[in-house]
Every structure is written in C-alpha cells, then in structure tokens.
C-alpha cells in the first residue's frame, strides 16, 4: 500500500462516517426551521454565541450540551442494564454502517489507480443496506423491552412490527430496480443513471421505475419511523414510545441515530432514484475532458449566486420588531463577509485550475470528485427536506391503516411491478 | 317487637311503628317531615310550626306532626299545596331577620335552615325594611358561643338545660322579632354537658368555641367510634380530615345516637379527648435510646423474652377485646403473666347518674370477661419477680408515682408500648430498653365492653402520617399466635361465646350487644 492508498482509505472512511454525523446539525436545524416556516413561525432564533446564531445552528450546540451534561438516569426497575445501554448504541451503529456502501462520487482515478468512493469498497451495495437496516430493529426492541415500561413496550412492539413489515415491500421494490439496472452495486447503479436518454432526459430511477420509487420512499419513511409512520413514538398515546425511559446522552444517541438513519436512507434513495452523485446532463468523463470550461463557469456562477445569497441574508436576518441599532443587521454583515471570504478562496483555487490544470490530470479528477460530492450532498439535503416536509404536512397513520397499507397496498403493487418490469425487460431484450 | 300500624302518606300506604309521633314514625321509613324545634330526646314543643302536616278528613285539617301520634288508617298529606305554602311561609318568616352569613357560619353544610331553604323555599327575599340586628359572638360560657341573629328561637337549648341537665341556665326572652335566647345575668352555662346544645341547635346560633372556624363541615370525614374517655362507652362520631401536606387531624367528637348507652348526648370532657389523639403523640420507636426500625425492636424483644425467666405483660383496660386477646395469646405462648393493673384509671366520686362514670377505662368489663388479673398485689408481686416487663399501652403513671414505678422496675428490662410520652413516668422512660409508638383508639378498629356489659364495635378512620403498629400488631410482632385482628377476634369469640354468632366484629349491631352477667362467669 502506498501512502496515497492509506490517505484515500482514511478520506473515504471519514467521509462515510462523519458526513452523516455532521449532517445531524443540518437535519435538526432543517427540521425545526422548516417546521417553523411551514407553520408560519420562525423556529429557533435565540441561542447564540456573542450574538452569532448561525441560522439556528447554535441552538443545536446548546441542546447537545444540555443532553451531554444532563443527569443520566437508569431506573431501578431496569433489570437488564447491559441491554438497556446497548440498545441506543445498536440503533446508532446500524444507522452509520448502513451508509458505508453508498458511493458519494464517481470512481476517482489518481496516478492510474482507481478508488471507489465508498466507505467500504465492496460491491454488495443495496443488499448491504437492507441487511443493516434490519439490525436497527434490535435497538428498538431492546430499548422498549428492557425499559420495563408498558409504553416503551408498546412502542417497541409497534415499531418492530412496522419495520419488519415494511422491509418486504422495500426489498421487492429494490428487486424490480435491480432488473432494470442489472447490478446490485450502488456504484454501477449510479453510473448507469449518469447516461441520458434521447440526449436530454437523464436516465434516473424515478423515471425508469416510478412505482418502485414511490414504494421504496414510502417504505423508507416507515423504516426510519418518520411521520406519518411514527407510531412508535406516538407521544399522544404512548408518551414517547420505546425511548421513554432514556435520558441525557442515551436519549441523544437514539435521537441522533434516527437522523443518521434518515440521512442514510436519503442517500440510498438518491442513489437509486435520483442519479446519485451525477450532475444532471454531465457525466464524469465529459466533466474531466472539459475541465477548463467547467472551472470557468463555476468561477462566474459562484459570485453571482453569492450576490443574491447576500441580499437574501440581508433581507431576512433582522429583528421582527422595532429595535434601535438592530444587532441582527450587524450579524448579517458578519455572515456575508464570511461567505465572501469563502467564495474568494474557492475562486483562487478555480483560477489556479483554470490557469494550470490540463484535462485528465489529478487536479481535474479531484475537482470533479468534489463537485460530485457536493451534488450528492445537495441531493441528499433535498431528500431530507422531503422527509421534513412530509412530517409537517401529513398526520400520523392509525396502526391498522399502517399495516393495511404495507401488506395490502404496497406488497401487491411491488409484486406487480416486478412482473411488469420483468416482462418489459425481456420484451426489449 | 313493636306493634306495626298502617297509614297513608300522600295516598300511599306505609307501615310504621305504633306509639310514635308522625315525625319519628315516618323518619324510620325514610319520609322526612321538616322541623326545627322537635327533638326526640327533648319532646315536642310545637313552636316552630315547620312540621305542620295535613290530615285528610281530620279535625283540625292541619296538625303539628311532632305532637300527633301515628294512628292506624291515618291519611297524612305532605305534598298538598297548602302544606307546601305553610312550609314556604315559615321559612320566609325565619329568614326575615336571618343574617345569611353562611360564609362565616360554622353550621354551614349541616344547617337545617340551609337544607330547608334549598328544599322548601328557594326564593329571593321580599323584605325591604332593614333587618333587626342583635348581638353576635355572645359568650354563653362553657365553650358555647351564641349568635342571636341566626337563632330561630326553637328553644331546643333551653329545653335541654331544663329537662336533661336540670340546670336551666338559658331562657327565651322577649317576643316577636326581638325574641332571643339569653342566659340569666351572672349565670352562664356551667355544667358538664353544656356543649350538647351546640349539637342540638338546628342552625348556627350556638357554636362551639373549641371547633369555631377550625374546619368546614363538608371537609370532615366521619368515623363511627366509641368514646374512650370513661367506661360508659358513649357512641360518638369522629370528625377528622387530612388536609393537603398535613397530618390527619380530629377536629371534633360528636355524640351518635344509641338508646341503650348514651341516648343522644355525651359529656364535655369526652368531647375534648380528641386533643389527646392529635397532640403530643409518641412518634418514634427506639431501641436502647436510638431510633430503629420496628422489626429490629421486635427481634430484640423476642430474644429477651426467650431468655427471661419471668415475663410480665401489662395491658391497658382501654384496649379493645382483640388487643387483650392477642396479648393473652402471646402470654400463653411465652409463659408470661398478664396484668391489667389500672387502679389509677378510677377517679373516685367523679361520676354522676347520667353519662359520666368514675372508671375512666373503656374496656374494664372486657378485661374481666377475658379473665385478666388486675389487682395491685398481683401486679406488685409479678413486677418484683419479672426480669422482662412489656407495657401494652397502659398509662401506668395514672396508678403509680414515678418513684414507685422506678422501684418496681429498677433491674428489669422494659419494652414500653405507648401512645403518649410519659406513660411510665418521665424518668423511667429514659431508662427503658425499647419503646414502641402505638396507635391510639381513633386509629384502629375493635370492640370494647362498657360498664353495663354492652359490647360495642368502633371504627378508627384516622390515618396518621407516621405509621404506628396497634397492640395486635405489636403482639404479633413479638410472636403472638394472633397474627391479625381477624385471628384475635376468633380468640375473643372463643372466650366470650355470646359474641360467637357474629362472623367479624363489624357484624355487631350498631346499638351493641348486651352481655348478660353470667357471660362473665364463663
């Protein structure tokens, strides 16, 4: 192994392990602010360090600190303390590992060696995701059962049977996809979606397999225990469901596990149905061959974008009531300056590439990989937004409705989809 | 059995006892005739006119129910329009000068004026002339406070003091709207049954200075109990309440009707015994001066009883039959001697011919029935020999002086079960081996036998914050075969066959069971 190999392993693993964790902050902030805006409220807007509130991000920091320093209670009546502590760890670990096989950029070629941009460079792809998400049910069952609390137990019962039921339509939806893509490797799948159809329609999963997309997304919502399928928590009837007895950091781990699972399933949805890391209409080869024009376009677009972004910040970052020398305006100025400095740095790099880089060199490959990572993350963020958006739109299902939907609607539809897809694929040769 | 007769009320046939007036006869079958001045113990006076009822085909057509004997075939009208108008008009008359200060009146909640207003009147006042004002907060002596404005001049208090106590301190003076109850100048109420007038008063005119403003009547929980103040065993109602964050406290004792024992009344001393139940109670159980859990004390005492050559138990003559039987059973098991020495409970020449007795122990007859020795010589002899002495709630300081107690138990290990501190004398109690805080009579159930040989049950409704064992539990903790009240009751039934027919002590009739003299001999 060369040094480059080792560096690449570290980079890949850290991206696949830490990006989901970093996205926690994005998820939580988005959850709150989107909820606020949808309901015509403002969301968290108070917590700040020296007046810098970073759009609500500091609130997460405050909450994290609170949860970390809260008293960690394990009730006397908890008989199996080890399992009780193990439960949140399982759900968090399963969530993080399930992201390991999702490619976040096309295979990177450096010095003639190619590196698969996944946490674990393995080709079992989507089956791995299905296998690992199946484990998260252990965390829920153990949490609910070892809490020795009827609400927790009921929550765990609901949650576990829900996860087990929805795994089936999810797996069946994936099968019809696999018939189309002809591979279970997520990298292959992503690359497949980089092609275009008739020259202008990207061959995304959502267009090839709309029914499978709907089934998979619905099942993914259920697997993550998200509204409208969050009966496991059902605070109105079950208080808080399986994590009722958990406090402080153990609760926080459950909480984070849920968001990481959301991130992972968003990533899988994006990879399966929304072209993965591909920038629409531009496949990797095209970008690498035309690195100079691409860099130039970026060079122009970024400041223009920043200009409007700054205007937006100015408009919205101000106090909502009469105030002399509004400190939030000063705050907005700081944000804008920071962003301009960031843009300036990126511009310098782009200029350097424009000036010195040749097509098909390491720099070109790296720039494209970075662009693809950004694209991937933007797509995942949009998918996360859909999660949040759905949560604040659709009310919770009743439990029998939930099982009815899973077994009587999604399962037959998924089976039908397999038959139809198989027939079409065979007919088209 | 009394003879039953049939009569008609509002056209419906009812069967009532003969020889009673209409109010009493119909009350037995659940028909209420409103009245102020009539009281079964005081007889009919007929001054309030509230109990006027119609007699169909009778002459006169309207009669006071309190003065009319129920007769066979009588046709009584209660809901005729003219009767309703009479009731309404009487109520209106009573309210002309009534101050309507229910918010500050202690009677509110158990006031006949309030009840009858809701039932029989319920209209706004038509008066526009100023009300006649009279004296308020007049001290009648004997702990009775009088409010002349609230008085309905029914004369119950006056009649009670004339007929029952025969002291006659009160009288009705003036007439019309100036009529009021007064005591004769310089002679306030001064007898040992004076507070009964507070219970007799149907309205809030007479209130007890002791209970005044302490608690509202509707908050009070009631427990049917027996007064433990003397051997008469008056039937009482224990009115207690546990306020939020506070202890369960008895606010007052009221007499409960029992023709066999106390009629309708009780003495003033008896009323005040509730204070002993509330205040200055022993709270902690100690072992060698240190507060310890009950189980440790029991274990220690049991070991000492086993080792001892001679053990003496002292029971209280106020303890219930069950408690006595439980201690007896423990004594039989351990070979100990039981004494109920309690000469000090008898106060010479204190009693009278009405309710108050010399003997201040509630269950001395029961002690005799169970055959427990109580003579002084027996106790002295045993005390000298004993090396373990266990007191089951006997207030020995009443019978013996501190030095006497100290001399008797100078080299004896003592376990003192007591309800109040000082029952073995202050000096002695510092030296005792262990002490157990016991429940008092308002906190346990049981049966006591009064001086007339009537066995009566009582219910303890008070639940103190500090949990204490009662004597049955203490005996059981020391190893008595009677492990609970039910087992102890079975032992009692074995000793006293007259009680054997009742399954549990709660099945005893409310008026008590008269034990004949030869029961004691068995």
């Amino acid at each position, binding site marked *: 192994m060369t040094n480059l190999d080792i560096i690449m392993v570290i980079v890949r693993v850290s991206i696949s392990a830490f990006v989901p964790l970093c996205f926690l902050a994005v998820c939580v902030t988005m959850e709150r602010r989107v909820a606020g805006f949808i309901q015509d409220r403002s969301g968290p807007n108070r917590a700040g360090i020296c007046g810098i509130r970073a759009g609500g991000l500091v609130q997460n920091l405050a909450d994290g600190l609170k949860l970390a320093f809260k008293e960690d209670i394990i009730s006397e009546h908890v*008989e*199996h303390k080890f*399992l009780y502590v193990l439960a949140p760890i399982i759900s968090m670990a399963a969530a993080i590992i399930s992201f390991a096989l999702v490619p976040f950029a096309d295979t990177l070629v450096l010095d003639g060696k190619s590196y698969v941009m996944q946490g674990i460079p393995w*080709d*079992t792809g989507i*089956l*791995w995701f*299905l*296998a*690992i998400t*199946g*484990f998260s*049910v*252990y965390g829920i*069952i*153990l949490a*609910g*059962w070892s809490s*020795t609390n009827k609400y927790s*137990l009921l929550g*765990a*019962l609901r949650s*576990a*049977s829900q996860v*087990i039921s929805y*795994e089936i339509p999810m797996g069946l939806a994936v099968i019809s996809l696999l018939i189309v893509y002809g591979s*279970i490797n997520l990298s292959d799948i992503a690359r497949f979606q980089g092609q275009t159809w008739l020259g202008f329609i990207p061959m995304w999963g959502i267009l090839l397999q709309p029914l499978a997309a709907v089934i998979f997304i619905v099942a993914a919502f259920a697997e993550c225990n998200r509204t409208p399928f969050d009966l496991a928590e059902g605070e109105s009837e079950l208080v808080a469901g399986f994590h009722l007895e958990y406090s402080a950091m153990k609760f926080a781990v459950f909480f984070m596990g849920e968001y990481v699972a959301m991130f992972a399933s968003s990533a899988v949805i994006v990879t399966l149905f929304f072209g993965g890391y591909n920038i629409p209409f531009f496949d990797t080869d095209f970008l690498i061959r035309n690195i100079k024009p691409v860099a130039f376009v970026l060079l122009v677009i970024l400041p223009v974008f920043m200009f409007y972004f700054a205007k937006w910040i100015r408009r919205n970052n101000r106090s909502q009531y009469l105030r002399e020398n509004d400190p939030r305006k000063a705050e907005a100025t700081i944000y804008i300056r920071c962003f301009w400095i960031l843009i300036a740095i990126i511009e310098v790099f782009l200029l350097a590439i424009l000036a010195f880089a040749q097509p098909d060199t390491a720099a070109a490959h790296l720039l494209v990989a970075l662009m693809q990572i950004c694209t991937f993350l933007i797509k995942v963020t949009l998918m996360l937004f859909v999660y949040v958006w759905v949560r604040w739109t659709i009310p919770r299902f009743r439990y029998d409705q939930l099982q009815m939907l899973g077994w009587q609607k999604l399962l037959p539809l998924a089976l039908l989809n397999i038959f139809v897809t198989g027939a079409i694929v065979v007919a088209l040769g | 059995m009394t003879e039953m007769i049939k009569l008609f009320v509002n056209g419906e046939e009812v069967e009532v006892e003969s020889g009673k007036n209409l109010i009493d006869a119909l009350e037995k079958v659940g028909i209420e005739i409103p009245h102020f001045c009539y009281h079964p113990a005081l007889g009919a006076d007929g001054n309030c006119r509230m109990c006027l009822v119609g007699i169909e085909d009778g002459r006169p057509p309207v009669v006071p129910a309190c003065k009319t004997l129920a007769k066979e075939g009588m046709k009584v009208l209660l809901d005729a329009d003219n009767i309703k108008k009479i009731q309404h008009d009487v109520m209106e008359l009573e309210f002309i000068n009534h101050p309507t200060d229910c918010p500050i009146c202690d009677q509110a909640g158990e006031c006949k004026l309030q009840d009858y207003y809701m039932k029989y009147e319920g209209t706004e006042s038509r008066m526009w002339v100023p009300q006649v004002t009279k004296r308020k907060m007049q001290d009648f002596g004997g702990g009775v406070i009088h409010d002349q404005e609230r008085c309905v001049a029914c004369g119950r208090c006056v009649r009670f003091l004339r007929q029952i106590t025969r002291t006659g301190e009160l009288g009705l003076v003036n007439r019309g709207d100036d009529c009021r109850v007064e005591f004769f100048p310089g002679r306030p109420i001064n007898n040992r049954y004076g507070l009964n007038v507070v219970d007799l008063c149907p309205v809030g005119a007479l209130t007890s200075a002791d209970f005044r403003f302490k608690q509202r009547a509707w908050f009070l929980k009631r427990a049917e109990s027996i007064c433990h103040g003397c051997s008469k065993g008056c039937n009482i109602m224990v009115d207690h309440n546990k306020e939020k964050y506070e202890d369960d406290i008895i606010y007052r004792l009221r007499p409960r009707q029992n023709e066999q024992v106390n009629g309708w009344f009780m003495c003033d001393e008896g009323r005040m015994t509730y204070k002993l139940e509330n205040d200055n109670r022993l709270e902690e159980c100690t072992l060698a001066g240190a507060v310890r859990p009950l189980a440790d004390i029991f274990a220690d005492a049991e070991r000492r009883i086993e080792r001892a050559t001679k053990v003496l138990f002292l029971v209280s003559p106020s303890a219930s039959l069950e408690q006595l039987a439980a201690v007896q059973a423990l004594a039989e098991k351990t070979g100990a001697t039981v004494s109920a020495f309690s000469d000090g409970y008898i106060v010479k020449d204190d009693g009278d011919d009405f309710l108050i007795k010399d003997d201040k122990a509630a269950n001395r007859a029961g002690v005799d029935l169970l055959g427990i020795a109580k003579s002084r010589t027996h106790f002295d002899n045993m005390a000298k020999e004993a090396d373990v002495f266990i007191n089951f709630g006997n207030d020995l300081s009443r019978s013996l002086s501190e030095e006497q107690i100290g001399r008797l138990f100078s080299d004896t290990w003592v376990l003192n079960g007591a309800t109040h501190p000082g029952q073995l004398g202050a000096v002695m109690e510092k030296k005792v081996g262990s002490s157990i805080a016991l429940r008092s009579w308002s906190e346990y159930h049981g049966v006591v036998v009064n001086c007339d040989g009537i066995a009566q049950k009582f219910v303890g409704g008070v639940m103190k914050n500090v949990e204490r064992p009662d004597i049955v539990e203490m005996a059981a903790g020391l190893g008595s075969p009677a492990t609970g009240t039910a087992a102890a009751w079975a032992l009692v039934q074995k000793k006293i066959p007259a009680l054997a027919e009742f399954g549990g002590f709660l099945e005893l009739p409310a008026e008590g069971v008269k034990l004949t003299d030869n029961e004691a001999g068995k």
Partner: protein
Amino acid sequence: MYIDTLFSIFALIAIAGSLGLVLFRHPMQSALCLAVTMISLAGIYALLSAKLIFLLQLIVYAGAVMAMIVFIIMFLNLREKDLPEERERFTYLIGGAVLLIPVAWFMIKVMKSIPGVKNSIVGNGFGSIKELGQVLFTNWLVPFEIISLLLLVTLVGAVVLAGIRRESND
C-alpha cells in the same frame, strides 16, 4: 495469516454466542447470543468469499428470523420471576457435556479422515450473486421452482390457518 486471525475471531465469537445461548437463563439474552452467532457465521461466509450467502445470512437469519424471535420474546414480556427455577441446570450441563465428548471425538476423527484441500481460488466470481443466479436458474431451475411453489403453498396455508374464522363470531 490475516484471514486466519479473522477466522479465529469469528469462530470464537460464534462459539461464545452459542455458549451464551445455552447458559443464559433469560430467553432474551439467549436469543441475542444466537443473533451474535449468526452474525459471526456471516463473517465466516464472507471470509469464504461467499458474498450472497453472507448477505442472506445477515438479512434472513440475523435480520429477519432472529428479529422475529426477539420480537416474540418481547411480546411474552418475561420477567425474572416468571422464569422457572432451574436448580439442577449445571448438573444437566455437565452431564450433557460429558455425553457429547464421544460425539466430538468421533467428529474430529471424521474431520481428520477427510483429505485436506489446499486453499485455492475457486474460479473468478465464485459466490457472487451473478454466478449463483446463473447456476440456480440453469442447472437447478426445476428444484428451485418446486421449492418456490412449496414455500408459496406453506405461506398461503399459514395465512389460512391464522386467518379470522368468521363463523365462530356469531
């Protein structure tokens, strides 16, 4: 070397898991130990480059079957006091172990008699999904379909047996 170490680790975990399955008193703990064994077995499959079997082991056995078992144990909601008292379990365990010694000895003997095969690459793409699928759907098509049918019949039978009987309602 590296593979051997991993194999030993997985084997040890599998053995520890199965021991735990037998030794723990509480069914929940036993079931979780079984899950651990299943996962470590999956690891051993992976070492044998049987990719599909590895994944199926994870999805079906560790994921679905064990989750189902744990789920049902959770349903029973057994507490320490509900468990039967097993006074003589250690006697039984030791007796069972003693009884198993000849069997183990026999097994070892059989193992040793099998001619050793050198570790060798068993063809490119061995154990991958594509290879397995091709074998299944060409050479073994008829048995595969028959088994599918059998499973379907079982499934329908289970549903029919578990279904609500409307007649008994009235």
